[in-house]
């Protein structure tokens, strides 16, 4: 096979490497965050903007709750173009701008950080997977979240690394700001260290379920992913992976917004994938699950199963075994969606990023990462 043609198996391999990624890199990321926090004055910071594009934007949404609940700080995920074109003029000096880019070369993020040089009193911090990159050079501070490259593929490991780094940063930032005690921070960090075990306990089951679900829904025109709070970010990430892996139309929506708009969409048996960890919106996920089922949607749910009445068709439910705090749930809850994306690509005999076709995003100058 032509090496430029990307097989869906690459994505599955990335997913199965995630437990080891967390185990292997947790201490490095933690150390990188602690070193940074020794250099930076954070007392006056009252607002955090997390800017990203694509997966990095989704990671920003997925980590927002951790920043807000641990640090008690107003946090706004924002995409690169919107920040650059519409938000920049209104940034206060007491803001921290976090730019996320796995490559360190995302055009809009680099441009935004370049513009931020005009606002010398505002601190900029980059989460990058490539230390020697334009974004690293522009940022005041840096957290290195690099992980070994396993081959070109819709970003799974890079997303996990960015998310892990952002969540660790939120905990240590909260501790340094005096919003949580050192003991509380330690408990939270220990919980994250348990996540590889939870992932390993569930991966095989996730794989079996999603392979089965992919067979059932492969001919549907549209898939909808629903989530709220941190898992709205997860929903966006999962929808993106389906799009990147096999080109199926997939879209993410907030639980509440679905109740206002998308419930009216055809087809009536549209697959609706609900991300429902135990947490602050479990009650709403439960209502939306019943609502969507009543309308005839093919509802698939990912939950720990504690407080939801599950759909009757067990082939479509994915039950997570093990406790995970809602703030950390995005580190796990994207996995079935990512596997589903890969299995859909296999079922449809498609290649990742439509790599068997001539379509290429980078043929357009402004999409090219900045070197």
């Amino acid at each position: 096979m032509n090496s430029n043609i990307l097989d869906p198996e690459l994505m599955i391999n990335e997913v199965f490497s995630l437990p080891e990624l967390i185990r292997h890199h947790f201490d490095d990321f933690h150390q990188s965050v602690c070193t940074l926090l020794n250099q930076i004055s954070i007392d006056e910071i009252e607002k955090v903007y997390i800017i990203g594009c694509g997966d990095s934007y989704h990671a920003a949404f997925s980590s927002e709750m951790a920043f807000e609940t641990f640090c008690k700080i107003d946090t706004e995920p924002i995409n690169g173009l919107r920040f650059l074109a519409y938000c920049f003029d209104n940034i206060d000096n007491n803001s921290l701008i976090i730019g996320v880019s796995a490559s360190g070369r995302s055009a809009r993020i680099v441009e935004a950080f370049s513009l931020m040089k005009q606002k010398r009193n505002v601190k900029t911090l980059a989460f990058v997977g490539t230390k020697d990159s334009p974004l690293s050079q522009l940022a005041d501070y840096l957290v290195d979240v690099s992980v070994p490259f396993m081959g070109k593929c819709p970003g799974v490991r890079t997303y996990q690394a960015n998310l892990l780094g952002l969540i660790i940063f939120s905990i240590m930032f909260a501790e340094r700001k005096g919003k949580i005690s050192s003991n509380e921070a330690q408990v939270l960090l220990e919980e994250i260290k348990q996540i590889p075990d939870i992932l390993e306990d569930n991966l095989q089951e996730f794989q079996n379920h999603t392979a089965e679900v992919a067979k059932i829904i492969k001919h549907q025109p549209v898939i909808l992913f629903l989530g709220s709070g941190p898992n709205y970010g997860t929903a966006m990430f999962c929808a993106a992976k389906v799009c990147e892996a096999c080109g199926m139309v997939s879209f993410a929506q907030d639980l509440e917004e679905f109740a206002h708009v998308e419930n009216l969409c055809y087809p009536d048996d549209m697959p609706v994938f609900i991300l429902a960890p135990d947490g602050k919106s479990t009650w709403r996920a439960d209502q939306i699950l019943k609502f969507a089922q009543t309308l005839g949607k093919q509802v698939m749910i990912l939950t720990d199963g504690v407080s939801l009445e599950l759909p009757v068709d067990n082939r479509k439910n994915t039950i997570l075994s093990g406790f995970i705090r809602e703030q950390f749930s995005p580190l796990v809850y994207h996995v079935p969606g990512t596997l589903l994306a890969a299995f859909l690509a296999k079922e449809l005999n498609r290649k990742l990023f439509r790599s068997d076709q001539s379509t290429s995003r980078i043929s357009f100058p402004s999409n090219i990462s900045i070197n």
Partner: protein
Amino acid sequence: MNLISPESMLDNIKDLPNLVEKNTLHFSKLVDQALNNIHFNPITQVYIVGDGDSFHAALGAEYAFEAIAGITCSVVSGQKFLDYKIRNIPLEVFKNTLIIGISASGSTKRIVQSINAGKELGFVTLALTGRPDSAVIKCADTSIVLELPAFPPSPGIRSYVATLLGLYLIAFKLGFRNGKYSQEKTDLLIDELKDTSIIAEKTISLSENGAKKVAEELVNHSSLMFLGSGPSFGTAIFSAAKVIESCGVFSMGQDLEEWSHVEFFAYPGDMPTFLIAPPGRSFWRALEIAEMVKSYGHKLIVITSEIENEITKYADYVLPVSHSISEELSPLVYHIGADFFAYYLTKFLGRNPFRSDDLEFREKNMEYQKRDRIR
């Protein structure tokens, strides 16, 4: 629910110039009265909370709060605000924050709950609604009722524009109140707002036939994409919602930049893609995206100023908007072409808004929707 005729959408669209012309100054007085009940100064930050159309309107007006009034503005949907945001906004930091809850019906449950939660935590709350004596008014510290003469049921178009008018007026007046500009400048802004009635009138004339033709050509497509950035992101998701509400065709609203990272991979190769591109801060990117959309083989429908000719060279169809309106106010008129499209698509498909011709669906839907209303 009785059968809803698609014609009610057309009535809504064609009433927009009249709505803006007749109500802007009246609404302006109502906004003054409501803001006079708020006694802290300056108001440096607003949280706008809404669901559905109200959420879309808030996203459309966000940039006006920031660019014109110099006020930090955050837009959050109801359940997220209630379950995630409100408990984490430190009042000691945001003592100068106003929470604006929007519900055209006045009974959207999550918005009532959000206003109540804000009040409990010590924030000052303002309700923006179309219904007097509604639940949001009863719970908010102060309120603005943008009441309009009743029309037959329809996907909300007039209520959306009324909400936008209310939000712009709040923004203009808060900017003045904070000392950002003079009374004279405020009056000019209000005049500019009122004059959008003329732009709406001309846009209706410019875009209806084109929208009908686009709907006729695209009638067999099962998914549509609407793209916009900044205030036009609000317009994009509102436009997608109107298509869904009127005829159930799956439609997505997405930011320009995000599309170039993700959805451009999506099949079908000829997916109709609407590009909402008012002249403004992200027009340069809209221009690049137009080229991208076209080169991938998608059907490209550009909604832009009637005098633009660079971006239109990539378009299969153009739905022109009368020149000229500032980017901040563009959400007031840039949805009109998409509203017409939604109406004609519904007609060509032989469907009825809110699937009101599908009794089984409506019964199931209404049972759940009732639970999300507070009377």
